[in-house]
């Protein structure tokens, strides 16, 4: 038996999401006023999405996986190592971006947007561009100048209070 192709798996995931959300629409309260129930619009969209997902599933089962040029516009065509290690190496730059942004958000209440922002931009540049001593200085200067400048414009120029963080607010 042929394993399911990638498009078929996506279609099945979409159908499952539709099912969960459709179930969730039954917990939407209906007020005594208004002609259109608040659940009608989401249900309509979910019904359309489910039909489209079924068509997508049938398409992918009948025609097989979509041609390479139809998706994977990140693929550079470079040879990939097999296994999870290969997958991680192939996607390392985006994975670093997501991971570092996640850390930035988690630490935001403590570090604040200035220290956290500078740290995020600096670390990301080092991870993507290298840790050579000359580059470290350049990355630090760029991170401090750009994020610091942006932070100053918002804080002093536009009067927007950005998250100060526990460290910064202590001073």
């Amino acid at each position, binding site marked *: 038996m042929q394993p399911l192709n990638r498009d078929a798996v996506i279609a099945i995931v979409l159908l499952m999401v539709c099912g969960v959300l459709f179930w969730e629409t039954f917990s939407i309260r209906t007020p005594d006023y208004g002609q259109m129930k608040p659940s009608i619009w989401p249900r309509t969209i979910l019904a359309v999405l489910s039909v489209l997902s079924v068509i997508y599933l049938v398409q992918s089962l009948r025609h097989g996986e979509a041609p390479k040029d139809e998706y994977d516009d990140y693929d*550079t065509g470079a040879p990939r190592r097999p296994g999870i290690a290969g997958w991680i190496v192939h996607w390392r730059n985006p994975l670093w971006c997501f991971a570092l942004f996640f850390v930035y958000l988690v630490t935001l209440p403590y570090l604040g947007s200035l220290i956290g922002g500078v740290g995020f931009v600096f670390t990301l540049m080092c991870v993507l561009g290298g840790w050579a001593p000359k580059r470290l200085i350049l990355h630090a200067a760029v991170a401090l100048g750009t994020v610091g400048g942006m932070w100053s414009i918002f804080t002093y120029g536009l009067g927007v209070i950005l998250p100060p963080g526990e460290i910064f607010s202590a001073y």
Partner: protein
Amino acid sequence: MIVENVIAAFAEIGNVKTLLLMLVGVAGGLIAGAIPGFTIAMAIVLTLPFTFGMPPSQGLATMVSVLVGGLSGGLMAGILTGIPGTPSSVATTFDGFPMARKGRPGLALGIGVWSSFCGGIISAILLVTLAPQLARIGLEFNPWDYFMLVIFALTITASLAGRNLVKGLIAGAVGLLVRTVGEDEAVGMARFDFGNDALLQGFDFIAVLIGLFAFSQLLRDIHDPVSAQKSLSEKGSINVRIEHLAAIRELAQRWTIVLRSALIGVFTGIIPGAGGSIANILAYDQAKKASKHPEKFGTGIPDGIIAPESSNNAVEGGSLIVLMALGIPGDVTAAVMLGALLIHDVVPSPTFIAEEPVLAYSIFIAFFVATFMMLGLQSFMLRVFVLVTKMRMYVLASIILGFCGIGVFAINNVEFDLWTLLWFGILGFVMRHFGFPLAPMILGVVLGNIAELNLARAFAITTDLSPFVTRSWSLFFLILAMFSAAFPWFQSNRGKKKWTLFFPTFMAFSLALPVFMMGGTVRPILALLLVALGAYLLWSHARNGWRLEEVSEPRAEIDEA
């Protein structure tokens, strides 16, 4: 009336502070447009938080300036490095880069700059004159018509945004679904909040747009470790002077190409879902077909630069016509502009131009003034562009991601928006990877509540569904939506299957019915013209013995910017 409003608008934005901000906006837009991977929509989104504290006319004039600058910036990179800065300047590279390599980069840039200027001015004039007329037509729209207009906008975007219509429609539906999270706008009931207070507020759509669009686009640019280390200046020569006088002479000799291409641009901008990326290819193709020397296209001739650059700058004028008159954004850039307008408490609608004429005309005039500023700033910004191109891609991407983090928070001062940015960044990245176009999803997010509100209003009037097919405008948009959904099949089978010969005829006949139903004097005549057009197409095919013609036109398909 128009003249009075234009004068009042000039007075509104004609102060030193606003003009300075507009200069900065145009300059920023020029640089943003010039950097491949940094889209105009991204530039507008990042400018948005800076404009919060400004009066609406000032803030919106700044945003429009970024838009105009961005539209023209793409030509610098395209001509000098061969890499189009934006998808709307793809065709510019076909002749711009060869001309630059032949030793005339200054002339190529000059032609590009002046073509952009002419395209922008023509479209600004049409914007000022056509938007109020379209708004008057928009006053005829009832909730059923608006709902169908949104459906049409989504369908045509889905059909043009990707090779696979089903994926496009799925993306559009997901976008609509995203907008349903939180309290519904009609009666205020919680939906899909899963007991979470943050979700009860719903996703801020600017955060969603930045996540889907900017975040995923940046990751695409740095995904490959080798290209992430590269800088733009490694390709081509970028040390030149713009030859203005020689360029003006070339344009004067080819004014018909300028005019035709600008009109193609405005028309493409008016159609929801289309945009600069289609217009520049379409205008290039038309210029080639109309030329006495089509074989010279691609070798570095002025016609090949004039056509795409006149059209891509005219597109946003057309897009703004629909946005300002009907409140419906035609493409991603217009969707972001709509977000900018809403943040400044400006809700575009058919009544907006009549009720807030000074503000509406300020936006139109800002478009006009910014086009002049773009012309003056190009030479100067070329030097800045040289500096920016020395930066490595990973440095640019890191800085922009850092800016996104600050800018998104500044919109509502809510940390949850930053999480929205991350989750939708991941979603956008995954969707792009699996071949789902993002443009329909973005339009779905933006248009979702407009569709729902109008559906709720329609149901408040009557629960009967027949007005969707008995009201002329609703039927008109329904037919357009159906034909736009079928368009990908038509496009892929054109020249191969007999039924494609009947597609345009059938469309003309079908549209004639609702146009005839609209009544009055002019519209029934238009309906008769549509019938005549359909009959003529049928007759011409019959005369050719129902022969299938070879299709050489470029495929109409929009890119994600």
